[in-house]
């Protein structure tokens, strides 16, 4: 009976607080994405020819995110029937977008981010390990152009 009560509290906490924190995080992600939408992040490696480059360096952003108790409970339930784990996709989406934002914010003077790559890994494996979390890294080459004219005007 006691165990059931604890489970109920954890689920309620995970559902309530987890949902609140997630929506707050999404709000901050959307605001920051809107603020630097004019700087392109691309997955190709070539620049448009004829642009003088001032400098290039590696930009990295990373985050470790974990699912809340309620989501893990849902996922455990879902594993019985199979299918998409919707509760986890928002987790990874958040992680990836946040990693990109941190990468952008580490090089604020860049004009373009070339060859953006993601790397996702679960850093705590094993059944006894109760902490389930994933690490997301985003990295790209931040290029700054030498000339004054920016490729896309920030308006």
């Amino acid at each position, binding site marked *: 009976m006691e165990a059931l009560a604890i489970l109920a509290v*954890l689920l309620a906490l995970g559902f309530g607080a*987890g949902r609140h924190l997630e929506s707050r995080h999404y709000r901050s992600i959307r605001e920051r994405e809107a603020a630097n939408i004019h700087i392109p992040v691309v997955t190709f490696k070539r620049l448009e020819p004829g642009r003088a480059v001032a400098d290039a360096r590696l930009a990295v952003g990373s985050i470790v995110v974990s699912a809340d108790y309620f989501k893990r409970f849902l996922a455990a339930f879902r594993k019985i029937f199979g299918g998409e784990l919707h509760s986890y996709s928002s987790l990874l989406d958040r992680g990836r977008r946040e990693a990109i934002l941190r990468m952008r914010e580490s090089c604020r003077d860049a004009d373009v981010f070339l060859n953006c790559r993601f790397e996702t890994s679960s850093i705590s494996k094993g059944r006894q390990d109760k902490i389930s979390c994933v690490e997301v*890294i985003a*990295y790209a080459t931040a290029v700054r152009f030498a000339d004054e004219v920016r490729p896309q005007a920030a308006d």
Partner: protein
Amino acid sequence: MNEIILTNLETVPGRSIVEHYGLVQGSTIRAKHVGRDLMAGLKNIVGGELKGYTELMMESRRDATGRMLRQAEELGANAVINVRYSTASVTQGAAEILAYGTAVKVE
């Protein structure tokens, strides 16, 4: 000697490569400590970012990159191109971070 340039392209934009020195790499295996685990365990109920772990991974990545750069420096390179990162969980509660790339000299 100036700072070593890192890129994850096959070139350094705006510069030309004059010499290749081959693969350089750096890695580190870090374990999380109990205090961090405890905090992460609590945070795990409500979900979201585990800041302690994020810091840990960032420190490790800096270390791994630093080791790779030292190797490149010893070879006389001034840039490392095509840098890749990879993370693997080695045993429970420990993660390896590997950084590797090609050391080159650019003009």
